[in-house]
């Protein structure tokens, strides 16, 4: 199996996704480079999560082409057939931890299902992952409902990274966290991205994370990517929605330069 070498981790071209007659994603094209952190912004209900879920394969597309690491999602067997499980890790908005498993078992779950390792090694790997996301081994014994919101996100991130995937999808990773925890989480994502060489696709509304961690930001409006580039490029974009997004009252407050 010769692997196509490509500088893009994800290439989406001319994608159409809709539900019934309502078209949510309308001929959208987007490229995610390898090893970058791409932030995706858009109005609530504007199709950000739909786009992410379509790339992952949870929602069927009506038209267009999705390539992940140079492999076509439509090829025989789909992406799952090509790569098996550890192609990507996904951090769902609510964490989506399995509620009847402890944090450690949650992190071990992908390892257990995909590899046949000894229990002691899996314990060590899970503890290592928990520690890398800033939790302790004691937290590993807790059940999801005993964890705080920030800890749930961390465990979910550890689970997403369990198999050291090449691409990580984050759906609003900092929503519901206090600014300090959100800041810590941003730093964590940046650090892990550097050490593990991850490509990160991040859906977020958090202007601070966009500014601090994202290499590029893409703005989704009316089912299309209306602007893409560095944070500065977006700040100078002329598109009305992007202008409203980055030059609204809240945004300006954050962007004020200290005197």
């Amino acid at each position: 199996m010769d692997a196509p070498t490509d500088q893009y981790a994800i290439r989406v071209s001319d994608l159409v996704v809709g539900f019934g007659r309502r078209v949510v994603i309308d001929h959208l094209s987007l490229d995610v480079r390898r090893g970058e952190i791409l932030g995706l912004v858009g109005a609530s209900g504007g199709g950000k999560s739909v786009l992410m879920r379509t790339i992952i394969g949870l929602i069927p597309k009506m038209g267009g082409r999705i390539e992940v690491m140079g492999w076509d999602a439509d090829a025989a067997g789909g992406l799952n057939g090509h790569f098996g499980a550890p192609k990507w890790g996904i951090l769902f908005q609510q964490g989506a931890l399995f509620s009847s498993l402890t944090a450690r078992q949650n992190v071990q779950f992908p390892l257990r299902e995909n590899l046949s390792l000894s229990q002691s090694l899996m314990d060590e790997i899970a503890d290592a992952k928990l520690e890398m996301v800033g939790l302790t081994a004691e937290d590993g014994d807790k059940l999801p409902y005993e964890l705080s919101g920030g800890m749930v996100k961390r465990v979910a991130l550890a689970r997403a990274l369990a198999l050291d995937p090449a691409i990580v999808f984050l759906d609003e990773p900092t929503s519901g966290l206090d600014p300090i925890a959100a800041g810590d989480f941003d730093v964590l994502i940046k650090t892990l991205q550097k050490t593990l060489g991850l490509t990160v696709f991040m859906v977020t509304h958090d202007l601070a994370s966009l500014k601090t961690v994202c290499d590029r930001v893409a703005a989704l409006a009316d089912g299309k990517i209306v602007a893409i580039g560095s944070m500065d490029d977006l700040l100078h974009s002329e598109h009305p929605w992007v202008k409203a997004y980055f030059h609204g009252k809240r945004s300006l407050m954050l962007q004020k330069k200290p005197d």
Partner: protein
Amino acid sequence: MIWLKLEPQWAFRKIELQPFRNLAVNSAPLLNAVTTGDSLELRPTGSWTVVNANLLENLFNAVTPQLASAKRLRVDLAGVREIDTLGAWLLEKISRGAEQAGRPVVVTGVDERHAELIEDVRKVNRGKRRVQPRPNAALALLERTGRSAFGAVGEAAILLQMLGAVSWALFGVLRRPRSLRLTSLVYQTWRFGWQAIPIVVLITFLIGAIIAQQGIFHFRRFGAESYVVDMVGILVLREIGVLIVAIMVAGRSGSACTAELGSMKMREEIDALSTMGLDPVEVLILPRIVALVIALPILAFLGSMAALYGGGLIAWLYGGMSPAIFIARLHEAVSVTHFEVGMIKAPFMALVIGIIACSEGLKVKGSAESLGRQTTTSVVKSIFLVIVLDGLFAVFFASIGM
């Protein structure tokens, strides 16, 4: 100089894993161990990634015995093409084991791409893991017995507490009738009563028919077929009608109550209600319990009628007893007392079902598993208590001569 080359191609691989990153460069990992005098040099090569997890664990296990005999350890990482957390951890485990045994370890040839990860992994799992001691089996059994005995007392207390809370809420509603949640009450009665009619009528009809058929079949041998009417009438009106209906309501509506309240508890809806100054017992629980208390006697009545109808139909079709004779005999065999005995029990059974269903619902914790467990417990417990209650009523009615 001893060369040891480990090539675990025999290793079992569960599924073929091909993460993108490794498509072009994935190569089988190797671990060359070179022993020079009392020092051991390890040269890992290839892809030390999760794709090769099983091979890596085998390599690690194979090299472990050699580590014990070496006085000095050198790890040369120059041949490693790729490494991820798993590979880094295994290598770290090797060198950490040697370090802790007081032997010098030198790690060389770290590629700068990997340096940060290897440095990070070096820091993890340093804390001591608490190992929970396994309790003595006999003691554990005693502990479980003790806990469930105390638990049973606690459960009884919870039921009494719920009964008290419901009575208090009812008292409040009687004092201020405007505070009754009429919409909710009507809706719940419609759900627990009206919607349950078809299935309740169908099942009690079948049960009445089966009792009549069995009665005719066995009584025929000594020519006492006509007493089937007495048996069906008394059995259905006094016991079976209300008992079967109560069991069905426990399974159908009690479980629904538990699951609803449980998921509301999970999603903090009940906490939200209390913070708005509303009493969850008054808003959620009272309408459900009152609805059950209204619905169950009606269902029991309809069920008893359906069972008598089924019995009459079978007596006619299978036993050759005309409906007119059946009704006439029924008139002689049963009295209003039998009917009263059955009907008096119905609201009490409904109360038991409702109280158990609601208190189990409130016991749900955060997990989906707990919701399932509490729903099961609710159904099992309410069926058990309904039957116990039926027995107590039988003793009571016998002693007052009804």
